[in-house]
């Protein structure tokens, strides 16, 4: 009896500790493969180098164009996804009737589960030709198209988390504001939204992390040019897309291979910081 109790407890403990092991495994594997690169080139040349020609002799391994590609695409996605996602969340939580809300919430949840490669297919086959014609640009596979698709993709993520935060605001707060003579919109924007700000901000950070880490959409839709974008219609090559498209041809252990793992380190650090930031905001919400 005692041994069974003991065994059960320690089996669950071992299982739970595996998560630490897996995280360590991820960190160690990308650092082990990526760090040897910095024996040959220094870190700031890697981050700020303007040229990415990994297969030239000698190779140029500057990932600044890739980092800026990721950042521009992500900012573009947030420009599309944040107003639409937060706006939808406010509508669902504050204005929609219970029936409408109960019907739309599972629908949004299902949308959040659609595989990103299908969004990529839509971007390549439907949006890109449209953008090319509409704006008369040489290619529809560019920063603009990738931002729109990514933006649409993060709407369900941002809106379902924001909706949770808004619904958690106490009813008394809304009633007090209405009793003071504020109308519904004033109540929403001056009382409810500020009260839910931590949760809404953490939903936006989650959307940021999802967008900057997304691979398939940018791989298929962003055009793939490893250059600093000259306009919103320039093709770009975000970090994730460089890893996905080049790893197949990089020789195991070569400088190119190490540089791709180096990009993964940068990517990991960015998403790690954003998830810490998100937890901090989420914690702040709980304390409030």
């Amino acid at each position, binding site marked *: 009896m005692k041994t069974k109790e003991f065994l059960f407890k320690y089996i669950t403990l071992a299982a739970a500790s595996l998560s630490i092991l897996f995280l360590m495994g991820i960190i160690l594997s*990308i650092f082990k493969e990526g760090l040897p690169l910095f024996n040959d080139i220094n870190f700031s040349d890697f981050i700020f180098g303007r040229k990415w020609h990994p297969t030239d002799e000698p190779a140029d391994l500057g990932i600044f164009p890739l980092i800026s590609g990721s950042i521009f695409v992500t900012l573009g996605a947030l420009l599309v996804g944040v107003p639409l996602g937060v706006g939808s969340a406010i509508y669902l939580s504050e204005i929609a009737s219970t029936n409408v809300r109960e019907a739309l919430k599972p629908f949004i949840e299902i949308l959040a589960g659609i595989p990103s490669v299908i969004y990529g*297919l839509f971007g390549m086959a439907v949006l890109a030709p449209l953008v090319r014609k509409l704006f008369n640009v040489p290619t529809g596979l560019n920063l603009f198209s990738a931002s729109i698709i990514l933006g649409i993709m993060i709407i369900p993520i941002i809106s379902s988390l924001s909706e949770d935060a808004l619904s958690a605001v106490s009813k008394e707060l809304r009633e007090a504001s209405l009793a003071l003579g504020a109308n519904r919109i*004033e109540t929403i924007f001056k009382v409810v939204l500020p009260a839910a700000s931590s949760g809404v901000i953490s939903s936006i950070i989650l959307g940021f992390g999802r967008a900057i880490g997304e691979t398939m959409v940018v791989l298929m839709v962003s055009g793939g040019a490893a250059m600093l974008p000259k306009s919103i219609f320039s093709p770009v090559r975000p970090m994730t897309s460089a890893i996905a498209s080049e790893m197949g041809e990089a020789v195991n252990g070569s400088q190119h291979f190490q540089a791709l793992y180096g990009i993964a380190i940068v990517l990991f650090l960015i998403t790690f910081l954003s998830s810490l930031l998100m937890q901090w905001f989420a914690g702040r919400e709980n304390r409030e």
Partner: protein
Amino acid sequence: MKKRKILEFAGEWALKLSVGISLAFLFLFLFMIFSKGAGRLSISFLTQMPKNGMTEGGIFPAIIGTLSLTLLSMLIAFPLGVLSGIFLSEYGKPAWLVSIIKTSINTLSGTPSIVFGLFGLSVFVIGFNMGVSILSGSLTLAVLILPIIINATVESIKSVPFDFREAAFSLGATKRQVITRVILPAAAPGILTGSIISVGRAAGETAPILFTAATFYTRRLPKSVMDEVMAMPYHIYALMTEGTAPESQVPIAYGTAVVLLLLVLIINGTAILIRYRMRKRRNW
């Protein structure tokens, strides 16, 4: 006074518009995929091998590949996830260990899927010498979906009322008995919902299997978990970006997308239905 009225009117319409635009985008997206791909669906599309260098025939091996990757990754991640969830919510000591585990889980769930792919490549494919195979891909996917299952388990155990535990303890049950005979059955529908959602996630992921499991074209079905496989998400990507006959490849890509989309929608729809029925039936 007038200004307030105008602002109220504009604000309300802006909110309605944002829902309208979001839904219009998403409907358009689903509509285009279905309208272009649904015509492709047939029994032979689902059950035949690809022919003529991917320009004709069906997607049977890709379906088999996706099913085997998904199933094996669930077999690995589900028991680990549920056990981890039990530890975090029922034992929860020592506190320092729990806080490290929770931080690890949060970090894992925010890590980009392509980074999981590189991890799988250097650890499973190269390090453990498993090669590009169903096993490498499933292990990689299992690590990716583990946080979802753990969080679902913790959340559903949390919602089991404290009285249940006290009643069981007062009858003389041990902690293990309380967990396995009282708490887990009560939390099961919630755990199931979360796990089903993670099945949908595993089925649709592409980046983690790019270098660990997927291949563009095989003439035969996998014989063991050490074989590389075709998979639906990767098939869509490859048809759109590789090959030389886009005019015949793009329609197959749409057809594959409809099959994958239906699979994921059915999986997630089932999860949501289970949760809905559970909430209705639950009397605590």
